């Protein structure tokens, strides 16, 4: 398999996952906003902070209101991680690996992008938002399913799994970190009861509400939710599960020593964290920072090992 192709399918998977995660997050927050009494102010800007692009946002927008934030997350041409830009980049990566990706998958990818491009206004406005985002999520899942069901599970597919799960782990850590701490504008009158709703919303961002209910048989609380999203071994969108998948994909690739060592280490960090202590001591943020660095290092090692087509010497 060509190094250049490996890089493209890897990024394709990352971008699709990024688009889907962003769509899930906006959906959950949209639904939460509808539930909240008018007296409670939700910070849409918090969503922008989850994606790590808040500086970019500040450069382009004056008001941190719902419309601007949603527009930034979904459609903004200057935001490289907006749903539309992610899908465009994913499509470009599939377009340039069409020789390898099953043609049905290309068609779904192509339609997904065209749909997003043509209907994006539905997502920005309140009325069509839920339907638009649901369709984006569904189409991303269709693509993932098609790849799983029609593409040979060879090295190319391993790079897809690698990209998807690394992106998922990355987004998962961001959710845990910024999520609950910043979504409520700090306001002394914040009534405690809404905390439950907030954690529920974060679970919903990761489609984890139902699974949490089945596996954690207690009322929704911060420690359990963070533990679930970070450490649950069975839930497919938890950080630990995603890293396990990364490890699994890495194991069958050639020359995998460095990335493999890094992912095992990152997974151990995630598993061994004592969540109640971290929350009690306000140490969650620093912990997540370290975990994100781990994830960035894995990406760096992937690129170094397989992607950078260094002018190798022929036999």
């Amino acid at each position, binding site marked *: 398999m060509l190094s250049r192709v490996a890089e493209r399918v890897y990024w394709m998977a990352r971008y699709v996952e990024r688009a889907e995660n962003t769509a899930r997050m906006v959906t959950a927050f949209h639904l939460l906003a509808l539930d909240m009494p008018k007296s409670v102010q939700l910070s849409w800007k918090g969503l922008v902070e989850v994606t790590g692009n808040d500086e970019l946002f500040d450069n382009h927008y004056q008001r941190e209101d719902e419309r601007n934030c949603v527009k930034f997350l979904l459609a903004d041409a200057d935001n490289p991680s907006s749903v539309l830009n992610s899908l465009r980049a994913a499509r470009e990566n599939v377009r340039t690996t*069409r*020789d390898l990706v099953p043609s049905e998958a290309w068609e779904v990818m192509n*339609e997904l992008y065209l749909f997003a491009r043509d209907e994006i206004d539905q997502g920005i406005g309140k009325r069509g938002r839920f339907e638009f985002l649901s369709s984006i999520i569904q189409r991303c899942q269709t693509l993932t399913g098609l790849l799983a069901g029609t593409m040979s599970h060879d090295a190319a597919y391993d790079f897809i799994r690698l990209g998807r799960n690394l992106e998922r782990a990355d987004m998962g850590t961001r959710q845990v970190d910024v999520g609950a701490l910043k979504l409520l504008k700090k306001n002394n009158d914040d009534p405690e009861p809404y905390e439950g709703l907030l954690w529920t919303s974060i679970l919903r961002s990761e489609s984890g509400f139902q699974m949490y209910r089945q596996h954690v048989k207690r009322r929704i609380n911060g420690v359990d939710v963070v533990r679930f999203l970070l450490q649950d071994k069975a839930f497919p969108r938890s950080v630990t599960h995603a890293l396990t998948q990364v490890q699994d994909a890495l194991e069958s690739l*050639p*020359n995998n020593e460095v990335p493999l060592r890094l992912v095992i280490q990152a997974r151990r960090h995630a598993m061994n964290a004592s969540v109640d202590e971290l929350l009690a001591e306000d140490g969650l943020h620093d912990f997540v920072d370290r975990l994100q660095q781990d994830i960035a290092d894995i990406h760096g090692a992937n690129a170094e090992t397989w992607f950078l*087509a260094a002018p190798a010497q022929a036999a």
Partner: protein
Amino acid sequence: MAIDWKQYDPKPFFDELIAKPGKPRKPAKPLTDYLSSLDDTEIQSRKTAADSAILEMGISFTVYTEGENIDRAWPFDIIPRVITKTEWERVTRGLEQRLTALNMFINDIYNKQQIFKDKVVPRYVLKQSKNFREQCVGITPPHGVWAHICGTDLVRDGKGDFYVLEDNLRVPSGVSYMLENRQVTKRVFPELFESSSILPVDEYPTQLFDMLASISPRPQDYPEIAVLTPGIYNSAYFEHSFLAQRMGAELVEGADLVVGDDDCVYMRTIDGLERVDVIYRRIDDEFLDPEVFNPESMLGVPGLMRAWRKGNVGLANAPGAGVADDKVMYAFVPEVIRYYLDEEPILPNVPTYLCVNEKDREYVLDHLDELVVKPANESGGYGMLVGPHATKKQRAEFAQLIQKDPRNYIAQPTLALSVAPTLCGDDIEPRHLDLRPFILQGVRTDVTAGGLTRVAMRKGSLVVNSSQGGGSKDTWIVDEEN
């Protein structure tokens, strides 16, 4: 309201489907009957279905000057063009004959040059050829074949006879659109495939793969074949990736390949370097190898020519194959066929006047208002004079150009290209078209069943290029006996 073929009058041109108003040609009758059974709304809904299929399937071509929007949907007319199998078999024989002779000619040019010594083709033709490559002299590629993939442009005149307009022996494109056009027609008009017996076109990628495998330097079951593309900004990128996908070959760019100290070609993979046996290159000679040709080329692979000359890698088409497809060489192809094969050409050339011959030149200068004048070495319609549409001043300018450099100009009569019914807005109107079949030559020779039909969508226009408002049609070779 449905289509009324009595209202459709292709005069004065030869029409592919309709003999005269109200009288469809026999092989086209099931098609025309079916079309007239549909009302306007149904026709439009098929058109819409075709457009959205093209968008969904991502069938595109690239236009250079459009900034971000680099790929455009492929323009397609839903009404197929129909040719009988009997007629096609004759065309097929003609195309096989032509390419066989051309490959013998190219091999002769790069080796003994017997045809020049025997004065069948004058030597000056070679001297002025832009596509002659000195670096290829003395080489005989496997099977003596230089042009493995040829796209030959055919047109019909007012009587309906096929003529060869030109041979494309370098990197002809369009075959993927031929295949995709059929896919779209199957989606849009599935019921038509029941009433007519239409020859399938799907075999092409398999035949292409087999042909490429037949020029592998290492005879083995699984030769490593790569399609070399200039990259995503090339106008034919869609086709490069399409063919790589259909053949299960690697799609590579120059930077993916490296020539080793052993003069073999390798590609950079996640496992390290892997040897490549055959390269179907879709970049021009000049950019193939910066060590030998254009040193500025970023598209090519340094050392590739070295590897090819040593026989360590197969290249299709071989470098230098283009020597036989310039417009002056074209005029000699009938002679070339007689010389090497001792046969009469099955498919005629369009009559061509070589301005270097005094008699021809006089005729051309006297008849500039009727002729199309072309420079010998340009392609894509650059620097052409279309006599009947030109101003007096333009004709005078060309007269001067011809006298100054007669060798560089040829002239041909303006052809009354055939037409076919084409959906234009809400109406069915006659539009001019041509046909590009593809011929593969390795150990054996294969010709596509039909080819790519290109249509000039503008009324009266003869320009079929997709970049200039041309469209395309599915091309049916119909077996009347079934």
